[in-house]
């Protein structure tokens, strides 16, 4: 994996940072000249991952969220969203569409389903009491002017 460029954001788990996180990642990706569709997919997936840290990982507390973005030579964007929150007990169950532990807060249980459908690969690593890392990969179509 040949990394051409990398950036990292660290911010507090306040809901007002959701827009900041997805917009910042989109601004970084813009150098690859992505299509509007690709950019929208990435913004949506990042929004899901970051919101999960705020709503679930750091429920009733404020913690740090780290978003790391790598651009590789084969035009792939690798996004890691990391928290040191409560962790996920059963990842398989958590990833089932419509499964949510917060139905009373109007959570649809669709975050992971959206991340899966809007990217090319989704990987979730979690340890109860330690935190969760979500890795999203998206291959961008190669267009004139890239590189």
């Amino acid at each position, binding site marked *: 994996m040949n990394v051409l460029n990398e950036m990292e954001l660290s911010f507090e788990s306040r*809901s007002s940072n959701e827009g900041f996180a997805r917009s910042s990642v989109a601004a970084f990706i813009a150098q690859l000249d992505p299509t509007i569709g690709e950019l929208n997919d990435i913004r949506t997936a990042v929004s899901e991952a970051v919101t999960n840290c705020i709503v679930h990982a750091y429920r009733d507390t404020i913690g740090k969220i780290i978003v790391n973005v790598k651009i590789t030579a084969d035009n792939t964007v690798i996004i890691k969203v990391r928290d040191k929150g409560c962790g996920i007990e059963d990842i398989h169950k958590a990833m089932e569409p419509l499964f949510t532990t917060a139905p009373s807060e109007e959570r*649809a249980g*669709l975050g992971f389903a*959206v991340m899966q459908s809007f990217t090319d690969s989704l990987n979730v690593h979690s340890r109860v009491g330690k935190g969760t890392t979500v890795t999203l990969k998206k291959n961008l179509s190669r267009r004139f002017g890239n590189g």
Partner: protein
Amino acid sequence: MNSKIYFDGSIMTAELIGEIDHHSAKNARMEIDALIQQKKPAELRLDFSGISFMDSSGIGLIMGRYRMMLLYGGVLRVVNVPHDLERIMILSGLGALDIFERQGEVYECT
């Protein structure tokens, strides 16, 4: 996100403008629900034409208003969904509820 809410007889329309995420959905929800409880409209129309971004929080917002309208004996219509948002709407399975309407015609969401 901002919302412009207006009434035409027993029809309440909420024009949503901007980006829907977990942060912005909270205020819109409170504003809309307060008016539903107060006016008990027969129909609530959520107009998405001004929405430039939405994640699953938007699905939660729609589902919640659907239940709310059911509770008060009214119906929900979701209108003018921009092309960019069709994928997430379809993924949500909300198509089964028959609430979508676009340019006067109902379209299938399966």
